[in-house]
């Protein structure tokens, strides 16, 4: 197991450099004049241009220049310096403000998915082909079929504006209540998938041979389902939820955009829209790390849950 983790960590280093290089290249390769992009509509004086060219090492041109700037960037990154956004704010500060909001949102979404998705999935799996099973099937297909870009504004309009159950937008420093509706919208997709997955897994495990053995031992049904079936059924579900939590932690561009939540996804989207290269690359670099770590955690968790899995 230790060797497995070590090998994965080394792979992660490679993956990290690979992805940051690609994102860095894509973001800056498409840009015309970075100095003009920085200044926006305003004219740039010769003195300013010379200063900025010097500051960002733009005098180095071609492929060599690109790599010069990339390594310069990585050097700062490794030292914990994410650099400056084009707006002049430290990207580290932006993320420090945005991340707690995204984490809160992710945790709400995750709680919704686990609480309702897994519970309903277990019930649907036990009562296969019942009214409950069939109605959850229709509901989950509906949720999975509607994209967030439609679902989020709909929820915002009806629950936020029309009936005013929830605040329609979150604002700069959102509390739990303001994040509840976006959290539910964000979690509904994970909820639906978790429900389907749990339902299938439970139904499948209920037919397994070891259930027949457990019955012939004379165990009560509650124990057979609650211990034997559940322990096996939840292996794929926990794996899915782990990956999903990693996804949610890296921010939800659409949901945060619609509800005006100043999280990671919101800032990333603003960076893309304003062609703020350093901001986009900075956020993505950190997201890559989050994603790689969460994937490693899921793999290790999988081996802990299923004793048949061995990593060498």
């Amino acid at each position: 197991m230790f060797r497995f983790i070590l090998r994965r960590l080394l792979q992660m280093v490679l993956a990290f450099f690979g992805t940051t290089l690609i994102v860095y290249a894509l973001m800056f390769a498409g840009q015309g004049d970075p100095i003009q992009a920085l200044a926006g509509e305003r004219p740039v004086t010769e003195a300013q241009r010379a200063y900025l060219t010097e500051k960002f090492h733009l005098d180095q041109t071609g492929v060599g220049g690109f790599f010069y700037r990339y390594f310069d960037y990585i050097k700062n990154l490794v030292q914990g310096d994410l650099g400056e956004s084009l707006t002049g704010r430290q990207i580290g500060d932006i993320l420090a403000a945005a991340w707690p909001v995204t984490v809160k949102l992710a945790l709400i979404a995750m709680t919704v998915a686990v609480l309702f998705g897994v519970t309903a999935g277990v019930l649907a799996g036990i009562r296969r082909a019942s009214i409950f099973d069939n109605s959850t099937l229709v509901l989950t297909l509906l949720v999975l079929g509607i994209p967030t870009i439609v679902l989020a504004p709909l929820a915002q309009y009806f629950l936020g504006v029309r009936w005013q159950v929830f605040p329609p937008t979150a604002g700069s420093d959102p509390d739990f209540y303001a994040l509840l509706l976006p959290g539910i919208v964000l979690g509904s997709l994970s909820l639906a998938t978790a429900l389907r997955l749990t339902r299938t897994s439970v139904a499948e495990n209920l037919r397994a041979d070891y259930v027949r053995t457990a019955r012939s031992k004379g165990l009560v049904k509650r124990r057979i389902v609650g211990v034997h079936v559940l322990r096996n059924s939840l292996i794929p579900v926990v794996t899915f939820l782990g990956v999903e939590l990693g996804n949610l932690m890296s921010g939800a561009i659409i949901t945060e955009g619609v509800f005006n939540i100043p999280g990671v996804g919101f800032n990333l989207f603003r960076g893309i829209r304003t062609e703020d290269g350093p901001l986009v690359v900075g956020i993505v670099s950190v997201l890559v790390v989050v994603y790689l770590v969460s994937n490693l955690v899921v793999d290790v968790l999988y081996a802990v849950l299923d004793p048949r899995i061995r990593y060498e």
Partner: protein
Amino acid sequence: MTHSVVQPTPASPTPEGGHLLEVRDLHVEFRTGEGVAKVINGVSYHLDAGETLAVLGESGSGKSVTAQAIMGILDTPPAVIRSGEIRYRGRDLLSQSEEERRQVRGKEIAMIFQDALSALNPTFPVGWQIGETLRQRAGMSRGDARRRAVELMDLVKIPAAAKRLGDYPHQFSGGMRQRVMIAMALAMDPKVLIADEPTTALDVTVQAQIMDLLADLRRDLDMAMILITHDLGVVAGVADRIAVMYAGRIVEHADVRSLYRAPAHPYTKGLLESIPRMDQRGQKLSTIRGLPPNLMRIPSGCPFHPRCPYAQQVCVDVVPHDLVLGDGRTSACHFAQEVRDDSAR
């Protein structure tokens, strides 16, 4: 040539009361989307204390379904028990509540299954799984259950039992895994052990070890055993009596010696003749022609008639009754005596 009086049997061929376990005229159907499969069509057999009954038959003959009906672990639906009785110590299990039946499972009648790898829960250590029965059913503490689990694993001759308590089923070899299954079944000191093809998934050498172990345990713990198998070779050394099943019926019932010496049903005869023999080297192996019947459309009359070399018009028209051939033997064949005499020749 021996002559015994051939007569139709009464509804209950055995005297009232005495048997430890008795299945009477059991009918089970499976109702699926494609139709109704008549899986068990009037099976009757009994088991006395301390004896071993082998139930023999090919896949789909209903031998496992009968066993699962006894245990009360049939999946209903799709299975439906249409009629019949299963009496344990005189009480009809089928008329009992689920809670009463649960008390019988494991404690009075225990069962081991064919494929121990899938029959054991893959995510719990074997010690935990053996101990679970003791903790849940006998109210033992964790420590006591662990100690008893080690004893049980010693009993089924698993080497270094105490060390292997924490191992998972996949870490055992096939034979050791089946021993774990047996240890688990023995946890509550059952009076009847049903072994459903306990050696089918194992190597031949290991098969013999497991069969010997089962025979020893049955004798030492004074249990009665129902041994379900399709392997005639497995039966010979272990069983006292044999019930041969075909298409959900018992077609022949006899003590082991007489059945091997002179089978009285064409199906049993065919099975015995299809065993490879050293004195017939180089010859073509004899087989039973045709395929097992589709249980949704069981042939009229005797269900074996399309495959039977003895078949006459009467076999197509009339369902044969069990014919008593003496010495407790029965055969559900219109020509039982001829078949037996042919076999004995």
